[in-house]
């Protein structure tokens, strides 16, 4: 059974944003002058143009040079206060934001909601206003509810960076994924990127769809039908208003078909609690059908990259051999995360002054 779909041409022409351009990039987003920055917040990548994504990636390259120095410390954000506000647990995202701020010379304050006034019933907006009052310039926020950073951004002068909200968006992860991919294979235009796993509950997948399609990659999402969002392929047949146009992509429920000739395989964490909710028959069945194994990877392009946003369930969505194999760039992703977050802190602080 398959819901495979090449998008009908009809939709490709009518889609509003981030059209996968065959020749010239046709985006309805405003085209700012190259090298300029107009975002006060980074909430998701759906409002980023190709030029803006390129500016972030270029700046990331500069930050990597800083990180490679013997003493990785520059005075760029002296006097800037960065607050990380995490309503959900995290190791890599929170620590890499903290390090990014410190390398750039900012003051970094870490707040875990589990050990703050949130426990006493303080509302999100009140917490944000409190942090603004103590002088936060940038607020890095993770929240289990989709849209929470958007709410926060409407109530504060500080810049909000979304470090993951519910199932919705994780823009910094998508940017570091793109940076990692580009540093290996160069331009992603026309390259085949397969995102495999639990798409429905993945904010990583959602943000990656925007950035990858904006940059012109051919994106295939793959997973069991119960873990694929309804309507992902866009309106078929019936004319639906395309105001909320999705990026153009292909949907495939068979991993063996999806992975064939892929340049990049992006695996997602299977949240084990999904098993209890009856969305998959059993972990074993999921592994049989959707685990990225050596055998399956062998049918992708030679040297195809394997990514994973972490934390990895080895032997579930990805086999041990692939996770630690020569084609895996999982550790590199973590290292690039610091540089990408430095780039965003720099652009947000400098661009809005």
């Amino acid at each position, binding site marked *: 059974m398959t819901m495979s779909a090449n998008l009908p041409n009809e939709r490709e022409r009518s889609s509003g944003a981030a059209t996968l351009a065959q020749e010239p990039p046709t985006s309805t987003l405003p085209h*700012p*002058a*190259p*090298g*300029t*920055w*107009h975002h006060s917040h980074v909430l998701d990548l759906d409002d980023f143009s190709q030029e803006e994504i390129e*500016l972030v990636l*270029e*700046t990331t*390259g*500069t930050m*990597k*040079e*800083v990180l490679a*120095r013997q*003493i990785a*410390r*520059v*005075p*760029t954000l002296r006097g800037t206060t960065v607050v990380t506000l995490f309503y959900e647990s995290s190791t890599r995202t929170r620590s890499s934001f903290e390090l990014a701020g410190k390398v*750039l010379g900012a003051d970094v304050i870490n707040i875990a909601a589990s050990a703050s006034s949130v426990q006493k019933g303080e509302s999100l907006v009140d917490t944000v206003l409190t942090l603004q009052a103590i002088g936060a310039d940038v607020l890095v926020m993770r929240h289990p509810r989709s849209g929470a950073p958007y709410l926060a951004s409407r109530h504060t002068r500080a810049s909000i960076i979304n470090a993951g909200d519910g199932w919705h968006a994780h823009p910094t992860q998508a940017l570091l994924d793109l940076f990692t991919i580009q540093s290996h294979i160069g331009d992603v235009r026309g390259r085949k990127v397969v995102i495999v796993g639990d798409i429905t509950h993945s904010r990583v997948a959602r943000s990656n769809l925007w950035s990858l399609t904006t940059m012109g990659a051919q994106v295939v999402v793959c997973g069991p039908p119960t873990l694929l969002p309804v309507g992902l392929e866009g309106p078929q047949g019936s004319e639906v208003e395309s105001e909320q146009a999705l990026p153009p992509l292909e949907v495939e429920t068979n991993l063996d078909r999806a992975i064939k000739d892929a340049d990049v395989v992006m695996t997602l964490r299977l949240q084990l609690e999904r098993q209890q909710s009856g969305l998959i028959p059993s972990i074993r069945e999921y592994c049989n059908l959707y685990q990225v194994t050596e055998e399956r990877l062998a049918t992708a392009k030679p040297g195809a990259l394997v990514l994973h946003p972490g934390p990895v369930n080895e032997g579930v969505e990805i086999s041990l051999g692939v996770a630690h194999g020569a084609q895996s760039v999982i550790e590199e992703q973590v290292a690039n995360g610091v540089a990408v977050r430095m780039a965003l802190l*720099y*652009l947000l602080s*400098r*661009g*809005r*002054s």
Partner: protein
Amino acid sequence: MTETIIMSPEDVRRAIMRIAHEIVENNRGCKDLVFVGMQTRGVPLAKRIVDCIAEFEGESPPLGTLDIGLYRDDLPDQGLNIEIKPSDIPTNIAGKRVVLVDDVLYTGRSIRAALDALIDYGRPGRIQLAVLVDRGHRELPIRADYVGKNIPTSRQDEVQVRLLEIDGSDGVLLTTAEGE
């Protein structure tokens, strides 16, 4: 608005040639010399000086590039270009004689930032400064060791250095506001 050509392509070529000779004379050869061009137009200038030296000395000192974006103390206005390019210092500069190269010396603030940036890479034995144009109006106690041309200007004037590698032709233009 009036535009005056201050330096022709020939003037630029001769100035670079003279600066190259002065640097070698001053440092008694090119032992321990390291050239660092400041983004953007300092980079091709430094390259040309190094090429000149290679021609008459027979050896070519190491050449690096430096972007001072991370060290600026003045914040750009909104909408201005805030791109930063990677820096590349190819050798350990500790104890070396570093020649910093830029196109225009004006307030001295960029050079201040460049000195901070350089020192983060190591402790040079000496830092010297070479510029194609010195237009005055310093805000910091900074001076150049090698100057292509001194140009008296008012603060409202605009000095534009054009280089073949970036702008397609060589030359220095002075734009004065009408009625100044």
